[in-house]
């Protein structure tokens, strides 16, 4: 008995915005409805629903999975919320894959939502409590610190300059000009980024993705059902996820070994031997610009320490050899955490179908990848899609 094949057959996404008037369930609804409409399905056709959303502390509702349920189409259905911090957006479709691949259902809807603007005055308050309550929180850390600590370690290891990293922000924010959901697309220069306000050196303001509200959804189908729904199914060929120790200060931050582990799990399943040759378009997670470089290396899409040089050479541009974040990524489209990850999956889905419009990468790619990262420099989630 071989594995059941699972395809993405439809997708929906809201605009990513700094503050939405819509409630969380309303955001989820907008994305879910659009996904259903995109493949001409009704909610009653959907057997099961899985929802991905990051901390309860964003939307500001304890057990927010239950709160979002109705808008996500979960009423009177098997519905569950999955969660791996910032890695959730790419994990949610993996969770959906489990639903269909297990044979428990033929059609599963995957919805991701985040409404960060509910936190007042700023979501950073919720980030204090990601650190260990006893051994770290008393010194009042903030999320930006941990990125700054990791970014410095990474830059020091490979002798990178701020400009080397800033190119990622420039590229992605520019790519986002063509994305209808984009919150902060912009035409910037490397100087703009390195001269922007220092938050926690080496992290500058324009190195960071914004806080956002938004939602995204996809529809997954088993092989025989997918073929009835669309003549352009995109298959989930590999899934991988990995969680590193919570004692984050006891590992070397220069390399995301958990991303490599997750990638290898997905590549093994997809039968990919040489990812740098076989992956034709990728959407690694880029909440901070250096993270894209970090993740390219962890995903084995290039040699360690090479990602910055490849970026400078245009290798990762939309028309480069290996387009990276052609959507505009979290840096340009915005970062409603879980919805961002699913936005990346949707981008690869569209790229492989040749339906990415102005963002379409050349060469009719057949194999693509999306990846997200999360927690205390801990989680890698990877999905490999094929046409």
């Amino acid at each position: 008995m071989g594995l059941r094949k699972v395809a993405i057959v439809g997708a929906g996404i809201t605009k990513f915005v700094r503050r939405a008037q819509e409630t969380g369930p309303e955001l989820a609804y907008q994305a879910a409805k659009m996904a259903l409409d995109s493949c001409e399905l009704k909610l009653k056709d959907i057997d099961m629903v899985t929802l991905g959303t990051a901390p309860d502390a964003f939307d500001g509702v304890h057990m927010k999975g239950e709160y979002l349920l109705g808008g996500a189409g979960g009423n009177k259905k098997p519905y569950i919320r999955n969660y791996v911090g910032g890695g959730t957006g790419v994990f949610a479709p993996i969770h959906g894959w489990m639903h269909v691949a297990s044979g428990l259902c033929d059609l599963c809807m995957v919805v991701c939502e985040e409404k960060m603007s509910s936190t007042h005055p700023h979501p950073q308050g919720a980030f204090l409590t990601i650190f260990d309550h006893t051994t770290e929180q008393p010194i009042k850390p903030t999320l930006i610190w941990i990125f700054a600590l990791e970014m410095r370690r990474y830059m020091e290891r490979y002798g990178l300059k701020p400009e080397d990293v800033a190119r990622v922000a420039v590229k992605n924010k520019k790519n986002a000009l063509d994305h209808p959901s984009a919150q902060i697309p912009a035409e910037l220069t490397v100087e703009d980024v390195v001269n922007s306000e220092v938050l926690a050196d080496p992290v500058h303001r324009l190195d960071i993705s914004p806080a956002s509200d938004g939602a995204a959804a996809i529809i997954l189908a088993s092989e025989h059902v997918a073929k009835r729904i669309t003549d352009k199914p995109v298959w989930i060929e590999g899934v991988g996820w990995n969680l590193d120790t919570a004692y984050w200060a006891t590992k070397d931050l220069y390399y995301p070994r958990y991303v490599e582990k997750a990638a290898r799990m997905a590549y093994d399943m997809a039968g990919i031997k040489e990812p740098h040759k076989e992956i034709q378009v990728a959407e690694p997670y880029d909440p901070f610009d250096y993270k894209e470089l970090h993740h390219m290396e962890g995903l084995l899409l290039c040699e360690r320490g090479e990602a910055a040089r490849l970026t400078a050479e245009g290798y990762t541009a939309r028309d480069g050899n290996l387009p990276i974040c052609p959507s505009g990524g979290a840096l340009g489209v915005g970062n409603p955490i879980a919805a961002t990850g699913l936005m990346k999956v949707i981008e690869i889905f569209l790229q492989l179908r040749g339906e990415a419009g102005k963002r379409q990468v050349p060469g009719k790619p057949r194999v693509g990848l999306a990846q997200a990262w999360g927690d205390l420099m801990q989680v890698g989630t990877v999905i490999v899609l094929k046409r």
Partner: protein
Amino acid sequence: MAYNEKIEKNFECTNFPGAIPVNYVYTFGIAGEKFFRTIKDKGTFVASKCPHCNKLYVPPQIYCDECFGTLDQYVDIGIEGEIYSFTECYYDFKGNRYDEPHIMGLIKFDGVEGGIIHRLNVKKEDLKIGTKVVAVFKPAKSRTGSLDDILYFKKK
């Protein structure tokens, strides 16, 4: 045995305090805005309508529970409903005990899905499932567009 060492003296049991320091501001959403604006401006309730399934929802929601279609029509359903269930609640949201219980009810409206959960101001003998009730609002001037614009439901 899971450990070689365990705590054996009760004064070695220590704990460490902490908190999650977060504050929130919630928008009422597309349907909620309509609902509370109508309460504020007109002192009545609106439901959202699904023309396809011929269903009404209160509080209004932007989707139909039946067909999942998008709802953007709103219908005035008036302020009269009936008690679907009720309870005398003895504790507040922090677990503090009241001297006198608060009477809470779920009020359903004829021909409308959903309902409104709010305080009841009803005599003991009328506190029954099925009793017809009507909403009592704050004076129009002092209404802000919030759940507290409804003072309570009383017997019709």
